[in-house]
Structures are given as structure tokens and as C-alpha cells.
């Protein structure tokens, strides 16, 4: 059976769905016996989702207007 360290090392492969069946089974066996690793997997999976939300940005209006002016100058045929 996998250790916690081996399981953590395989998380990306597991979540990407790229793990061979037998390897996935070994990982699932470890997760059944290790609640901390289950929490770890959940938080690992949630990390990119939270980060995406935290890092959303909107272009400030002034810069958006400058972009329009720039493109009108450069793209005018």
C-alpha cells in the first residue's frame, strides 16, 4: 500500500485521470485508510479553484480607453 508521501506525489496524475487502474486502486486503498490524506486531496483539488477566484482582474477603465486609442491608431488602414 502507498505511504502518504507516495500518495501526495501522485495527486496530480490522479486528478488528471492519467493513472493506470492498478495504481489508482492502490491510491484509493491508501485514502480509505487515511483520513488526513483525504482532507489533503480535497484541499489540493480546491487550491487552483480558490486561486483562480482570488486572482481575477479587470482592466482599469483608463487603460481600456488607452488600448482603444492605441489600436485605432495602429490598425487604421
Amino acid at each position, binding site marked *: 500500500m502507498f505511504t*502518504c508521501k507516495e500518495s501526495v506525489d501522485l495527486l*496530480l496524475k490522479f486528478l488528471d485521470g492519467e493513472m493506470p487502474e492498478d495504481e489508482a486502486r492502490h491510491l484509493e486503498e491508501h485514502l480509505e485508510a487515511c483520513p488526513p490524506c483525504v482532507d*489533503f486531496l480535497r*484541499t489540493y483539488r480546491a487550491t487552483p479553484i*480558490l*486561486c483562480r477566484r482570488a486572482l481575477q482582474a479587470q482592466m482599469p477603465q483608463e487603460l481600456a480607453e488607452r488600448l482603444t486609442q492605441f489600436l485605432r491608431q*495602429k*490598425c487604421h488602414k
Partner: protein
Amino acid sequence: MAEQQEVVPQEQQHADRELLERAQAGDLAAFEALVELHRDEVYGLALRMTRSDADAAEITQETFLSAYQHLANFRGEAAFGSWVHRIAANHALMRLRHRSVVQEAEEELKGPEFTERDSLAEYPATDWSRRADEKVLDDELRRAIQQATDDLPEGYREVFLLKDVEGLSYEQISEITGDSVPAVKSRLHRARLALREAIDHFYSEK
């Protein structure tokens, strides 16, 4: 258990296609409409990559100018938004390569600790994974994540932003960065572990 990548909504793709056809026929107003639809995403990508408002504004200009200049070559196999995204990622990376960046040691990336028997040494502070579904994101958490992302060593930041925030594929990131797909995956995993630690630390301090 394959992770879902973000998909451009059908209606937006349809709107983009109509505008694109008109833009390719020389309609500048149609191109400007496309710019307006996609400029926040492009600016956001550039700002996250460079952490500079000035650089992000310039990269946004360069991106849409490139897009305009190559409109005739764009055959529309990918969505327009994905196409400009990749152009922006290339421009942002070129900008970063031109800076003199102090490469931080890989060893500075924080990750989980293990006992001698390779068991998790510390359990996650709480199961904060459900916060990902909450409607409103805590401002302090937002700042903590922004700081933790800024603290990632450059090569890891880029890969994390391009994959987990911008939604590019491993192959696209490999093409843009020049790293192999296995190297991209390894960096992504380590970046995610470091960010997971930072979020965990945030909740353990609350």
C-alpha cells in the same frame, strides 16, 4: 477522475465567430468589439504573470495588435479567446525573459512535511476545500493567495498561472515555455503544493 478545464460558453463562441468574420473582412468596429469582450482576460493574464500594471497594459496592446495583424491567418479552429490568450502568454513570457530575474532555489518551495515513515507530519488545519464553492471570497484570503502566488519562484509561477488560472493545456505550456510536458507537470504539482500550504497556513492562523 479527469479535472474539467474551463470552456468558453457556446454563446460567446458564436458571438466571437460573427465578429471575427466581420473583422477579417476589414470591419474595425467588429475587431474593437472582440477586444472589448476579451481584454479583461488578456490584461488579467498579463498582470498575473508580470505583476506590473505598466507591463500588463503594454502586453495587452501588443497582444491585440498581433492579433489584428494576423487576423487573416486565423482560421478559427480554436476559439478566438483561446487564440489571443496564447498570444498574450507568449508576449508575457518574452517580457519576463527580458527582465533580469533572480532565480530562487527550488528548495525554497514549501510543501507538506512527512515523518520518517513517510506519513503526513501535519494534518490539514481544517477542511477548507468547501470554501472554493462559497459565493464571496474572503478579502484577507484573496490577499494571502495573491502574496503566495507572487512568492512562487518564477518558473513555477508561470506554469501555475498558465495551467490553473489561464486554462492552457500541458502541451500549449510546453510549447510556450520550452519545458518538456513532464517538467511542466512537476512544476505545476510543486506550485500547487506550495499554494495549498499557504492557504492551509492562512486558515490555521484564523
